[in-house]
């Protein structure tokens, strides 16, 4: 009987590819945000509203991750932004290899800000580094205020949290106070924006923040 020591990180291949992506993005001084949420919380609608509101102030690109279909990419393309769709064909998250491939398939031209819209899932995407500058988590009032305590890793990892469907707040049992208290325990450093992808509420504050982040990245 022999014992063979391995000490092999099971996500080692992904981490290596993510480091390559990060180097590649940094060389272009490109700000990259990994946008994550549960299905149906409004990531694509937020992106549409963000693109409209920025109104050409930034050179934007979007990598759309979905299990199937290119519906989201079509929606983004209609807004006149560079976009490429990844279909994971059932896989529950994007990985750094998929992002590298997609990035090289983006139409040519200047880019300052790249959104990677991850597969709708609050579990697995949290664990896969894509080489992004940071993670942004979207949650919506209709999902209930207990998401941060139920999915602590993704909320801990996020630099920014977007609370969407804020216009529907009066019609839900969502407790803003409990949400703030829970998030303060898990991730007190996170920036929080209260927005509505439908009405556009809060989008300009979120965009001002994005403009500032891009500015400091390129400074």
């Amino acid at each position, binding site marked *: *009987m*022999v*014992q*063979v*020591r*391995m*000490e*092999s*990180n*099971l*996500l080692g*291949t992904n981490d290596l590819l993510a480091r390559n992506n990060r180097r590649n993005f940094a060389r272009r001084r490109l700000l990259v945000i990994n946008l994550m949420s549960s299905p149906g919380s409004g990531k694509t609608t937020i992106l549409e509203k963000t693109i409209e509101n920025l109104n050409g102030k930034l050179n934007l690109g979007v990598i759309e991750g979905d299990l199937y279909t290119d519906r989201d990419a079509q929606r983004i393309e209609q807004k006149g932004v560079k976009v490429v769709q990844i279909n994971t064909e059932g*896989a*529950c*998250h994007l990985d750094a290899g998929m992002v590298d491939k997609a990035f090289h398939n983006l139409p040519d031209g200047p880019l300052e800000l790249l959104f990677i819209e991850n597969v709708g*899932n609050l*579990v*697995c995407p*949290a*664990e896969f580094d894509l080489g992004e500058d940071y993670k942004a988590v979207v949650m919506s009032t209709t999902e209930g205020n207990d998401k941060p*305590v139920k999915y*602590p*890793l993704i909320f*801990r990892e996020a630099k920014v949290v977007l609370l969407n469907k804020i216009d529907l707040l009066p019609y839900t049992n969502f407790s803003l106070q409990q949400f703030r208290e829970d998030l303060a*325990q*898990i*991730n*007190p*450093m996170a920036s929080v924006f209260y927005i509505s992808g439908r009405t556009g509420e809060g989008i300009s504050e979120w965009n001002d923040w994005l403009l500032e982040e891009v500015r400091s990245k390129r400074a």
Partner: protein
Amino acid sequence: MHELSLMQSVTELVKESALQNNIHKISKVKLVVGKFSMALPDSLQFAFAAIAAVEPLLEAAVLEIELRSVICRCLECNIRTEIDENYSFICSNCASVSLEIIQGRELYLDYYEGE
């Protein structure tokens, strides 16, 4: 959710190494899994059993999982705090919220045994 593909990576790593080390029968595979990784021990065991059923090298193997708790180091006072299931990231010594996770995100193949 992706425990099966994780166990497939484990199998590949073990198979390749076993071939190099002239090992034909594996009796134990040991993983280290942090509580703040998204891999569930039960699902890993289930995936391992599914793979071992069709992989002769692993048919007699058991999977041992060492679960590691989440531990943070305070960036203000350097004291370590173990984070419980409430996931309250606050230093137990100085109440600072500037904490760095130093344990609990592990997900690695530690060793295997065989002959």
